[in-house]
């Protein structure tokens, strides 16, 4: 089994205050901590599980800055064999279809059975890249996958639908699967793996190196334009309970009790 796994380096904004840069088109990400996208962490684990069961090789593919190599090395520490990092500032900055084209460039010309992506990036929320990538590669796909079973020449997967209903489908290989969180239990990188990962091959390439014409993926090629970003006003009608933590607890308990809620 030859597998590619696409991983994205994303900021953790769940606890952080988000501020825009003065251009109104970018987010000030200087204070965020970055790590592998949630779903991609599960995709990495799935790719390693497949390799452990079937043999073969896993290649990590990521578009991102130099500092994301920490994440890439971590994926290799968990068992991925090698990696390609694409960095090029000529690509469009806000279009998953362009990202898919660049990722396809990083795969085309090499043999593969499976490409795993996350089903959604936690920062930009498009849920678009993986399925677009399949079309760019001219192969089959299934999205929102939370179980993978390899059969002869095909793969049987569970697609997770709204309400937790599962749709079981069979897809011919090669294929792109977009992996949903919860599909497995991502491992921690073993110390030995971390040491070995430092010696694994990590190629840094530009668009030219992977044979992607910059004019086909730049801002002119993209058919959408990011017009502006803004911080939506938080409309809350909640009663914010104030005080020291213990006071807040007491006040809330009293409210719940008085309101007959408990």
């Amino acid at each position, binding site marked *: 089994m030859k597998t590619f796994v696409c991983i994205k380096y994303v900021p953790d904004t769940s606890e952080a205050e*988000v501020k825009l840069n003065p251009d109104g088109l970018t987010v000030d990400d200087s204070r965020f901590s970055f790590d592998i996208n949630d779903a991609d962490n599960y995709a990495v684990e799935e790719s390693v599980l497949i390799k452990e069961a079937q043999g073969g090789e896993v290649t990590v593919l990521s578009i991102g800055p130099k500092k994301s190599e920490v994440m890439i090395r971590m994926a290799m520490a968990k068992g991925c064999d090698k990696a390609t990092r694409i960095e090029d500032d000529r690509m469009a900055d806000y279009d998953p279809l362009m990202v898919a084209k660049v990722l396809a460039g990083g795969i085309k010309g090499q043999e593969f059975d499976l490409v795993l992506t996350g089903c959604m990036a936690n920062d930009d929320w498009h849920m678009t890249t993986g*399925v677009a990538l399949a079309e760019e590669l001219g192969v089959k796909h299934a999205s929102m996958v939370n179980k993978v079973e390899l059969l002869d020449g095909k793969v049987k997967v569970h697609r997770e639908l709204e309400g937790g209903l599962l749709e079981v489908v069979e897809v011919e290989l090669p294929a792109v699967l977009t992996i949903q969180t919860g599909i497995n239990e991502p491992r921690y990188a073993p110390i030995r793996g971390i040491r070995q990962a430092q010696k694994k091959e990590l190629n840094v390439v530009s668009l030219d190196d992977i044979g992607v014409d910059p004019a086909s993926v730049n801002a002119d090629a993209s058919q959408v334009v990011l017009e502006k970003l803004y911080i939506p006003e*938080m409309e809350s009608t909640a009663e914010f309970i104030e005080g020291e933590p*213990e006071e807040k607890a007491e006040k809330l308990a009293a409210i719940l009790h008085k309101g007959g809620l408990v």
Partner: protein
Amino acid sequence: MGNVLVLAEHRQGALRDVSFEMLAVAPGVAEGMGGEVVVLLLGSSLDDMAKKMTEYGHKVMVLDDPAFENFNGEKYQMALSAIIDDLKPAVLMTGHTAQGVDFMPALAVEKKLPLVSDVVELNYEGDVLKATRQLYSGKVNAVVAFKPADTYLVTFREGAVEAPEASAAGEVEKMDSPLKEDVPYRKFVEYIEAEVGDVDITQSEILVAIGRGLKEDKNLPEIEALAETIKADLAGSRAATDAGWIPHDRQVGTSGKAVKPKLYIALGISGAFQHLAGMKGAKTIVAVNKDPEAPIFTVADYAIVDDMFKVLPKLTEKLKELK
């Protein structure tokens, strides 16, 4: 011609809410573009659903073919590709759902058309179609403008707007199926219903729900103590079920359960829209989160901005006392 084609989504014989919700948005866009709203239904045995969709005053085009009995992303892509060539709609809108996201990106690549996904607002202003979408856990909104194209593709978020009231009757028009027989399509095997566990949280009166803010399962006993005190059942966000802190059937949200307890206490849950969709129907919502900007506060009735572990022990103690 400026028509807005809305793909009505259905599953296991029932129309999905997003099909109606899109009809709150499509007419404004169609009017701006000088066209009409046309509803499209793909499937098999569609008479009842087609009738239901006509109740909003728009033409409903029906492609009834047994090959569409179950959703199949590849077949949808093939059919819609042919339909775009045939009808040349200005906009094709589908739900941003497990169906929509499974074929719209591929369709966009195939037809070299622009796509904006997970749209929550769609406007046609000064000859430009503009879509609003969210980023960064809902803390930032982006307005994305389409460059001129023959057809704009949009996947629209379920639950972003309210469905309109039924109005006038529209007509039904049948279409021929463009499917070719000999293509080896992805094979549908079966549906598996969501697991049922020991507690049905859709029936719970009080839910204490945990999120990633729990940090580790060794913190669970504190939550259980609170739940026990107020006779609540435990539930949680996807992050909590993915981490294995609570069973899968206790997950609240779009890919879990929609709950409507009289009291919902959200602890360390950010309030991603997929989560809010499952719990905003609760009668009273209490949220404890240390981030004052957490979207969960937009649906809360009572809010505490603080570290939940500093609040919890006293809360449980006080509630015990008051019993």
